[in-house]
C-alpha cells in the first residue's frame, strides 16, 4: 500500500440565494443548498484529488476511505511535488454590519426592485437586477493536524439598463458586492447611474483605434492591474513556464514609484481569513518601486519557484485549490486627477470595465472599458463607446506616466482553470502613454 505523504480535506457547505428581476418581473427568488468536499493526497510523486458531495468530515472511517482512494489516484502521476512550510494562522472574519440571513426574501426582493426600477428612466427599454448572497461554512483539516473553520458571507447585486433608440442599443451596468454584511440598502443611485450611462451612450461616438494617451479611472485601472501583472505573477503559471515574468525577480519591469500589491487580508470582496491550504494570508508586494519583488504562491509553487509569498491558494466549492489573486491594486501615487488630465492634454479618458483577459505566456492582455470621453486640451469632451485596450506585460508598466492619489477598489469575479472566485481590483487614476486602443471608428 502506497503511503500518502500529505493529505488535506476541505469541505464547504452552505446556501446560495439568488433574486432575478427582469423588467419589473420577479423571475426567480430562491435559495439553494450545497455541500462539497475536496480530498487531496500527495502520493509518491504528485496529487490525487477526489471530489464528493456531503462528506461527514468528522467520520474517521469515511475520511480514511477517501484518503485511500485519492492515494490510489495519486499513483498515476509523474510530476514530483514538494510542499514548502508556510505560516498557519486564521484571521478573524470581519463582523457583519447587518446579517443578510436576518432579512427575509420579501424584503430583499423589494429592495432589489427599488434599485431595478431606479434604472428605468426615459429611453431605457430594459432593466434587470440580480441579487446574489452566499453563505459558506468552510472546514479544513490536513495530515499535519492543522484544522480551521470559518464562515464567509457575501452579499451584493448587479443592475443592468439597456437604452434603445432607432435600432441602436446601449447598456449601462453597475454592481456592488461586499463581505461585511447585507448590501441592498440605499443603493438606488447605482440603478439610476446604470440607466443614465445607457441613455448617454446612445449619443456616444465609436472610438478610433490606434495608439494614444489614455487616462484610466480607478475601476478600469484595477482591471488593468489584474490582467497586466496579477495573472502573470501567479506561481503556478510561473512554475509551468507559462508566464513572461518567470526569472524576472529583481528586474525593473515598471516605472519608479510603482507599487503593486495582492492582499487577501483586506476586508474587500476578495478577503479570505486563511487560504484554501490552511496557510495564513498576508499582504504581498508583487512590484516594489517598479522592481518585480514577489510571486503569488501556494505551498507547492513556493517550494518549486521561491521568490514569493504563500497564502494565495483559493478554490471554488468542490474544486481543488489553485493560485489566485484576491484584492489586487496599485498603491496611490501623488498626482491629482486634474494634473493627470492636464498632462494627458490630448487622448482618451476610459471609465468602468466589462472585464479583460490575458495570455500570460505570450505576455499580451486585453481589457475593455464601459465607456469613455475624448480628452482635448486637458478637458473631457465627446463621449465614446465600446473601447478595448491591449498591451504587453513587459512594457506596459513603463508606460505609466502618472499615478493618481485616489485609489478605489471594485468588486468582481475572476475565472481561471474553470473556477470562479470573488476578487477585488483597484488603483488610483493612471495616465498611460501610447496605449493601444481598439475602437472601430474611422
Amino acid at each position, binding site marked *: 500500500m502506497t503511503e500518502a505523504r500529505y493529505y488535506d480535506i476541505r469541505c464547504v457547505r452552505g446556501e446560495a440565494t439568488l433574486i432575478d428581476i427582469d*423588467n419589473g*418581473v*420577479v*423571475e*426567480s*427568488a*430562491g*435559495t*439553494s*443548498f*450545497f*455541500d*462539497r468536499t475536496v480530498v487531496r493526497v500527495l502520493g509518491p510523486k*504528485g*496529487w490525487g484529488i477526489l*471530489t464528493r*458531495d*456531503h462528506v461527514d468530515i468528522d467520520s474517521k472511517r469515511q475520511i480514511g476511505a477517501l484518503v485511500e*482512494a485519492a492515494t490510489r*489516484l*495519486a*499513483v*498515476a502521476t*509523474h*510530476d514530483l511535488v514538494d510542499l514548502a512550510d508556510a505560516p498557519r494562522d486564521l484571521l478573524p472574519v470581519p463582523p457583519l454590519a447587518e446579517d443578510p440571513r436576518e432579512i427575509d*426574501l*420579501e424584503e430583499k426582493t423589494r429592495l432589489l426592485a427599488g434599485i431595478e426600477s431606479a434604472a428605468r428612466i426615459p429611453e431605457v*427599454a430594459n432593466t434587470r437586477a440580480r441579487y446574489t448572497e452566499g453563505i459558506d461554512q468552510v472546514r479544513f483539516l490536513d495530515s499535519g493536524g492543522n484544522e480551521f473553520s470559518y464562515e464567509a458571507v457575501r452579499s451584493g447585486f448587479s443592475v443592468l439598463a*439597456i437604452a434603445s433608440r432607432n435600432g441602436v*442599443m*446601449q*447598456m449601462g451596468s453597475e454592481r456592488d458586492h461586499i463581505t461585511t454584511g447585507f448590501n441592498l440598502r440605499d443603493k438606488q443611485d447605482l440603478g439610476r447611474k446604470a440607466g443614465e450611462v445607457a441613455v448617454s451612450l446612445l449619443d456616444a461616438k*465609436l472610438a478610433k*483605434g490606434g*495608439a494614444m494617451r489614455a487616462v484610466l479611472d480607478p475601476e478600469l485601472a484595477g482591471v488593468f492591474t489584474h490582467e497586466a501583472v496579477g495573472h502573470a505573477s501567479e506561481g503556478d503559471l510561473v*512554475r*509551468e*513556464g*507559462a508566464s513572461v515574468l518567470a526569472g524576472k525577480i529583481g528586474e525593473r519591469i515598471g516605472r519608479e514609484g510603482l507599487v503593486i500589491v495582492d492582499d487577501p487580508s483586506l476586508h474587500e470582496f476578495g478577503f479570505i481569513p486563511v487560504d484554501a491550504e490552511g496557510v495564513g494570508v498576508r499582504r504581498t508586494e508583487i512590484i516594489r518601486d517598479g522592481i518585480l519583488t514577489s510571486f503569488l504562491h501556494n505551498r507547492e509553487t513556493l517550494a518549486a519557484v521561491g521568490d514569493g509569498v504563500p497564502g494565495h491558494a483559493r478554490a471554488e466549492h*468542490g474544486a*481543488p485549490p489553485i493560485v489566485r489573486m484576491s484584492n489586487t491594486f496599485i498603491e496611490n501615487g501623488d498626482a491629482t486627477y486634474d494634473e493627470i488630465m492636464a498632462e494627458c492634454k490630448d487622448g482618451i479618458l476610459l471609465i468602468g470595465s*466589462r*472585464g*479583460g*483577459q*490575458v*495570455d500570460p*505566456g*505570450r505576455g499580451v*492582455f*486585453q481589457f*475593455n472599458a464601459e465607456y469613455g470621453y475624448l480628452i482635448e486640451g486637458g478637458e473631457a469632451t465627446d463621449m465614446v463607446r465600446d*473601447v*478595448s485596450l*491591449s498591451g*504587453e506585460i513587459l512594457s506596459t508598466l513603463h508606460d505609466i506616466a502618472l499615478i493618481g492619489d485616489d485609489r478605489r477598489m471594485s468588486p468582481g469575479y475572476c475565472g481561471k482553470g474553470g473556477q470562479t472566485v470573488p476578487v477585488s481590483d483597484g488603483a488610483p487614476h493612471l495616465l498611460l502613454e*501610447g496605449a493601444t486602443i*481598439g*475602437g*472601430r471608428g474611422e
Partner: protein
Amino acid sequence: MNEGYLTDKVLRAGDALADEVEVFCTRNRSVSAGIKKGILGTAEESESWSMTIRTIKDGRIGFSSTGDPDRWRECLDAALASGRIATAQEWGGLPVPDAAMCSAPSADLDLVVGIENAAGMVEDLLAGAAEHPVDVVGGGADLGRSHRELANTNGVAYSMERTIAAVSLEAIREQSTGYEFDASPFIDEISPRAVGEAAASLAFRSLGGGRVDTGRYDVILSPIAAASLIGNILIPALSGRNVKAGRSFLADKLGDQVFDETLKIYDDPFRPGPGSTAWDGDGVPTELQVFVDRGVLERFAYDLRTAYRYGEESTGSAVREGAGEPGIGVHNLFIDGLRRSDMGYGQAISVHSVVGAHTANPFSGDFSVEISNPFWIEDGEAIRPLRTAMLAGNVFEMLRDIEGFGTDDRRIGRLTLPSIRLNNQQIIGKQ
C-alpha cells in the same frame, strides 16, 4: 442511492402543496488527468449528485436545488417559498409524457471513466506535442459520464446518459503560445495526438511574429475565433426571453433578411454532440429548429415559461447547466453557408483565436479583441506570423457580409462551424 424513490417522494409531497412539481436529478462521475511541466501532474476523480425542484402554484414558479438528498424537504420548502415571491405569469402546465419520445446520440457506451484511460490520452497528447520543439505548459484529458432524470407530476419520467471525452494542450516556445483542444461525447471522435501536435505546431510556427500596420484587411476567422464571437453575441440575441425583454438586436426583425443570403443557422438536437437530447430542460420534446435560413430570420428560441408568458410556442430550447434553473439555450447549433475551397485567396490575415471575446457588447454586437496566432496569408499560404494586433468590428454587420465559409467544420462546445472569411475588417496594429 435510489433516485427514483427520492423523486417520487418529492413529487408526492410537493403535489399536495403546489399545482405542479418537477424534479430534475443529475449524477456525474468524471476523471481528469492534468499536465504539469510536460508530464502527468494531477489525477482527479469527481462524483456529484444534485436535485433541482421547481414548483408551480397559481402561475408562480418556485425553484431550489440541493446536493444533499437528506435535505430534500428543506429544498422543497425553499422552492415553495421562492414561488410565493415570484411574479405570477400565464401558465399552461408542465409537459405531459410524449408517447413518441425517442432518444438522441448523447452517450458513448464504450467510454470508460477511468484514470488510466485519461492518463493514456495524456501520453498521446504529449507524443503529438513532441513533434515540434516546444515546451508543454498545461492541458490534460477528461472523461465523464452523467445520468440525467426529469420527472413531473403530469407523469413525465425521462432519463438519459451523457458522456464526454475532452483533451487540451497548451504549448510555448519563448514568447509564442499555442492552445488546442477537442471534446466529444464519443471517444473515437477525438484524437489526443492530433490535438497535441496542433497546439505545439501553433506555438512553433507563431515564433518571431512581425508587426502589422493599422488598417483594413481581409480576415479569415478560424472556427475557434468565429465561435467565441458568435457564441457571446449571436446566441443571446436568438433567445426569445431577450427578444421579448427588449435586449436583442434581432427583436423586431423576424422575417427580415438580416444576414448574408447564404447563411443558415440551425439547432439539431439529434445530431451527435455535447448537447444532443430528445427532451429539453422543461421536458418538452426537442426538434430541429432553423433560426436563420438563407439569411432570413425565421424564429427565436423559447423555453416553456417564456413561451407561455408571451403566447409563443416552446421550441424545446430549455437547457440546464449544473444545478441551476433551466434557461433558453442551444443544444447543437450549426452555422453553414456558401463554401469556398479558396478561402485564402489573395492577401489576408488568419486569426486562430481571440483574447477578450467576453468583453464584447452583447446588445450592439460591437467588439474589439486581441487576436492570437495570426498569420499573414498570401494565395492560401501562411507566409509569416504576426505577433500582436487587435480586431474591431460588429458581429451582426460581419454576418451580413460574409465572403465565404471554409470546408473545415469543427465542433466548439455546442457550436459547429467552419472558418469564415470577412473582407475589409478593421485591424489595429501596435506601435
